[in-house]
């Protein structure tokens, strides 16, 4: 990935930025705050109406009871919107030091950092700099921040934004998201266009109790291809914070989309997301995710395979350390003939961390010839930690097949003995086994991200 052709950063990131806040919303949520967010963003009225309608739904919806305990989540204590002053784009020199330091801490090589900077990034709830390669421009590819998309591409946004993929009414948090969403990315790839360099964003969040509600909308027209990468790291805070993103991906006929994310929120963050794609005939959707950090995470990327021959691949790795609860998995609805899905989910638990695989595979009554395969592997590094597997399989046609394998295990002492017999210390041997465990997923990541994931896991292993 470091060898990818990237424009010099200086050319693409212009105009310096002063990231002092001019506006900081109060804690808690009410209609006035939502109106203020909307007017601050100078949004068209239809978006404000959508926000207010979502807010009504949010108030009525109960907090989900079936997963992790969310009772400590206090909506009155959360700041729902922050924006840096006059954000636009910036030069590499203007990339905040904290971000640069995080890159350093993650051991991201120099070339890689520049690459990461050639992107749409989110700083304090909003995209502060944007790089859209000219080549993509000329092909009609749109890659911009979501706020701009509302103004510049209202037709597309009206049609696809929280309508048929993730409507506000989907769940309590998608409703909240609809009311206060801010920032995120908009990607549109026209028919037949193959974007060969991954589109990347880098999200950060560093204000106490600031909710992050970025929205990602990706539309891949027939025969087109795109790889979208999103990663987050965050400094530590002491006050509970909420992150509730929505990702909507449309994979049209014969198109292909890959969505890669590594999330590493600080451990006091509630990370409650809704990510979903609709896949049409012969389309391919691939989800690759690494879930680090956060206090409580609920994340089940979903693929709705709507057209014949559509395919979904879900690869997920979750790390649950001290005080962490990872409730993650995948949902695939096979709603057409000859659709297929593969889910590989891995979890590592340590120091009392809890990880749960929660998965749903539903094969509809007309999905003849559908195939699904689910593989869950959990690795427990000590006796204090726990894992659970809740795989739900619903098969409404007998002319389909579903395979499920689950393995839960402690780290193998014989393996450690073998590695240690070559002089490797116990800690390093454990780290090696863990790296090997995540390798099938790490190898699907672009190099910088694989390095980052390995670094993050090593930091976690040291109990950082």
């Amino acid at each position: 990935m470091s060898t990818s052709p990237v424009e010099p950063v200086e050319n693409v990131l212009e105009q310096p930025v002063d990231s002092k806040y001019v506006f900081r919303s109060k804690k808690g949520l009410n209609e006035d705050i939502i109106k203020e967010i909307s007017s601050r963003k100078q949004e068209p009225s239809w978006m404000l109406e959508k926000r207010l309608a979502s807010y009504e739904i949010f108030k009525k919806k109960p907090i989900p009871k079936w997963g992790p305990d969310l009772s400590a989540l206090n909506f009155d204590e959360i700041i729902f919107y922050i924006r840096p002053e006059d954000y636009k784009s910036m030069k590499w020199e203007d990339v905040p030091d904290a971000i640069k330091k995080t890159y350093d801490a993650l051991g991201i090589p120099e070339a890689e950092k520049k690459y990461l900077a050639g992107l749409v990034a989110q700083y304090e709830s909003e995209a502060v700099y944007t790089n859209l390669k000219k080549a993509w421009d000329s092909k009609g590819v749109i890659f911009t921040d979501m706020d701009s998309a509302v103004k510049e591409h209202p037709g597309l946004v009206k049609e696809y934004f929280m309508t048929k993929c993730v409507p506000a009414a989907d769940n309590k948090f998608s409703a909240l998201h609809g009311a206060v969403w801010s920032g995120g990315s908009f990607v549109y790839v026209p028919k037949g266009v193959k974007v060969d360099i991954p589109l990347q964003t880098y999200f950060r969040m560093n204000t106490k109790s600031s909710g992050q509600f970025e929205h990602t909308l990706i539309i891949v027209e027939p025969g087109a291809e795109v790889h979208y990468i999103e990663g987050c790291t965050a400094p530590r805070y002491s006050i509970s914070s909420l992150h509730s993103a929505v990702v909507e991906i449309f994979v049209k006929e014969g198109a292909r989309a890959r969505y890669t994310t590594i999330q590493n929120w600080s451990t006091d963050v509630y990370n409650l997301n809704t990510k979903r794609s609709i896949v049409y005939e012969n389309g391919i959707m691939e989800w690759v995710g690494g879930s680090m950090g956060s206090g409580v995470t609920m994340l089940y990327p979903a693929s709705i395979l709507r057209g014949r021959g559509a395919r979904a691949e879900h690869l997920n790795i979750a790390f649950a350390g001290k005080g962490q609860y990872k409730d993650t998995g995948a949902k695939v609805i096979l709603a057409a003939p000859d659709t297929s899905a593969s889910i590989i989910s891995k979890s590592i638990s340590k120091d009392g961390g809890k990880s749960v695989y929660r998965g749903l595979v539903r094969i509809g009554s007309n999905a003849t010839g559908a195939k699904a395969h689910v593989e869950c592997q959990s690795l427990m590094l000590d006796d204090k930690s726990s894992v659970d597997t809740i795989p739900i399989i619903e098969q409404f046609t007998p002319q389909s097949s579903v395979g499920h394998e689950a393995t839960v295990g402690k780290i193998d002492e014989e393996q450690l003995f073998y590695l240690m017999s070559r002089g490797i210390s116990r800690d390093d041997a454990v780290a090696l086994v863990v790296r090997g465990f995540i390798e099938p997923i790490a190898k699907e990541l672009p190099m910088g991200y694989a390095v980052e994931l390995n670094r993050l896991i090593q930091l976690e292993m040291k109990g950082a």
Partner: protein
Amino acid sequence: MSLLEIKNLHVEIEGKKIIKGLDLTINPFEVHALMGPNGSGKSTLSYTIMGHPKYKVTDGDILYNGESIINLGVDERARKGIFLGFQYPMEVSGVSVENFLRTAVEAKEQKDVPILAFHKALNKRVEAMSIPRSFLDRYLNEGFSGGEKKRNEILQMAVLLPKFAVLDEIDSGLDIDALRLVSEGINKLIREDRLSLLLITHYQRILDYIKPQFVHIMVDGKVVKSGGYELAQQLDKMGYEWVKEE
């Protein structure tokens, strides 16, 4: 001073007595063969020398360069130059042979090893051992044939250059050509790197390639007979019944 001195060793596993008063002395640059019927405790001895936590030393001692090692950790023993070629090498998924070897060399040298330089040196090494390069990218022992696993053990030994190695049935599962290659590899280490060896085997054949100065026969947790190379030849003809009867 002896390199390895095992004195009146008693070993239990899960409360079961396996080694029952074993004595064995190996001097620097000697090659010893250890033979004995199935279940006599040969692998138990090798695990105990390496320090497997399940194998409890209840009496006796193991001295290495004159110092007791029975309270040392597995990795410490390895870093002192002890190596065990496993009868059944473990598989570690997702960890490439190369990555693993670099980690091991880093552990031994207690410093970072440059990736590129290591890569080059390792490639030379496998070439010299007639091992295909693709070996290095494969996950450690995963999906390896029995013979490939054994060759991988020798590769590890050639990279780590121990002073003393126990090779537990390194010859089992090897085809005729592989046996020759592996033996040549071991002989080179004996010759050039002054490796001392305890070679556990059931078969005379490997001893034709790697000539031991001493042959020991282990029965029921004890060395019951020791001799020179001719003892192995005798065993090959007469089996273990003859020793047991004596």
